[in-house]
């Protein structure tokens, strides 16, 4: 029966959280809720995207996001093809447009792209007929990560609106932080961004966030604390304090979590640098939902694929 109001995504691409309406975000999270049950079955597969082809085009290395997409695609019965930076002709100097044209010649229904250049997914969306899903573009956006984080928060807290969420780390270079900020602000959460002054860009207050440089203030009363990964390759850029100094000032420890809400949950997009941004006992402790994030990532990516598949052809046909 289709008596409900039609609820749908407005685009056939998922390029970022910026631009999504609250209803679209809620639709994705609700759909993930319905799909999560499939992971508990003996036969973890439904026929929904039978005959659809997904190209996973990962120009920047990634194990967990690519695996998560691949599991999601396979559970929906889509056919998957993986291209990575090291194996594709991309490493041989082919331009992004040429690569895109070649990928498109195989008539995929989706291209999932991870790229170091911000805007690469948007570029593909302008030149391809298929649906494009951004799996992380430079320091710009990582929409499915923010969606799985929101889904995980909602499962624990029952809501997003009104929650106090502290995001701690290298905000300047983090697409995870950006996408989370867009999403949480749109859904009415109170976002606190915390990190060394050199790693927080100006103007974030205009996007609806509080900015803190002192960890204890950011954590005070927080319902959610999200630690960002310290990218060791950026340690020598001059903007970063030493590892020991960073761990002392911004590392999440049990001691510092005492100031948070008593039912605080601790999140991390992975991979963790234990003892740097997150103490080992916190990562493994009862407040940690880090492995749930990984589980939920599959359901959220299935939801995105399911909903976008319903929109395939609408703009191409228009």
């Amino acid at each position, binding site marked *: *029966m*289709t*008596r*409900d109001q*039609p*609820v*749908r*995504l407005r685009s056939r691409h998922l390029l970022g959280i910026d631009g999504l309406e609250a209803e679209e975000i809620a*639709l994705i999270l*609700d*759909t993930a*809720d*319905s*799909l999560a*049950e499939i992971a508990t*079955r*003996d*036969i973890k*597969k*439904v*026929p*929904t995207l039978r*005959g*659809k082809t997904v190209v996973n085009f990962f120009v920047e290395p990634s194990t967990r996001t690519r695996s998560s997409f691949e599991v999601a695609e396979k559970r929906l019965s889509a056919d998957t093809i993986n291209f990575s930076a090291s194996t594709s002709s991309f490493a041989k100097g082919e331009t992004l447009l040429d690569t895109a044209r070649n990928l498109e010649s195989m008539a995929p229904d989706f291209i999932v792209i991870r790229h170091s250049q911000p805007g690469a997914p948007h570029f593909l969306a302008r030149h391809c007929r298929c649906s494009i899903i951004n799996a992380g573009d430079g320091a710009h956006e990582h929409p499915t990560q923010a969606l799985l984080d929101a889904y995980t928060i909602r499962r624990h807290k029952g809501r997003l609106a009104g929650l106090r969420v502290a995001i701690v780390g290298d905000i300047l270079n983090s697409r995870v932080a950006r996408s989370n900020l867009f999403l949480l602000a749109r859904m009415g959460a109170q976002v606190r961004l915390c990190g060394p002054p050199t790693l927080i860009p100006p103007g974030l207050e205009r996007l609806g966030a509080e900015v803190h440089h002192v960890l204890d203030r950011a954590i005070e009363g927080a319902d959610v604390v999200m630690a960002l990964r310290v990218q060791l390759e950026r340690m020598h850029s001059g903007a970063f304090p030493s590892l020991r100094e960073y761990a002392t000032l911004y590392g999440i420890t049990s001691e510092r979590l005492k100031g948070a809400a008593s039912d605080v949950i601790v999140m991390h997009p992975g991979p963790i640098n234990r003892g740097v941004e997150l103490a080992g006992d916190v990562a493994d402790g009862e407040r940690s939902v880090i492995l749930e994030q990984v589980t939920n990532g599959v359901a959220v990516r299935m*939801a995105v694929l*399911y*909903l976008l*598949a*319903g*929109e*395939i*052809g*609408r703009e191409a*046909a228009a």
Partner: protein
Amino acid sequence: MPSGKRVRIVDAAGIDRALGQLARDVLERNRAFPGVGLVGIRTRGVPLALRLARRLEALGGAAPPSGMLDINLYRDDLSLKAAPHPVLRRTEIPFDIDGARIVLVDDVLFTGRTIRAALDGLMDLGRPDAIQLAVLIDRGHREVPIHADFVGQRVDTARDEQIEVRLAEIDGADEVLLIRAGTSAPEAER
């Protein structure tokens, strides 16, 4: 809401009688077997399955467990058109379906395609000993070889008419409407 002429063809008392008949028939057929489970097809099969469970209990049996099944992931028309995919709801079956005798419950049997999808969905969840089908209304016009074991009421319809079952739990009242052709909303009866 579709805009065509709407005629009430079954009232609340009629739905009540039909459910009573369904319960007696289900009991009669399965008397020899313990462990019957009901599975309602979302949306309106779910409250119907719950009502049927209460009826079966009132007839002197134990109340059978009742689950709900969303068939949208198994539809055969998902890739047909650039239309939004249907909103997914949760499938929740609170009993072990391996070896169970299952009575699938839906409001209207029309083309049979929903039931085909439901059978595929159930089989992915396990291996029941038997699956039977109970529907409140059978309106004919099958497109696949599907047959109901238990029918509350048969209704003669034209192919382009619509049947709308309204239930108190969802719609605020119990009634069955026949909507004549000429409506603009092409409601998929599934």
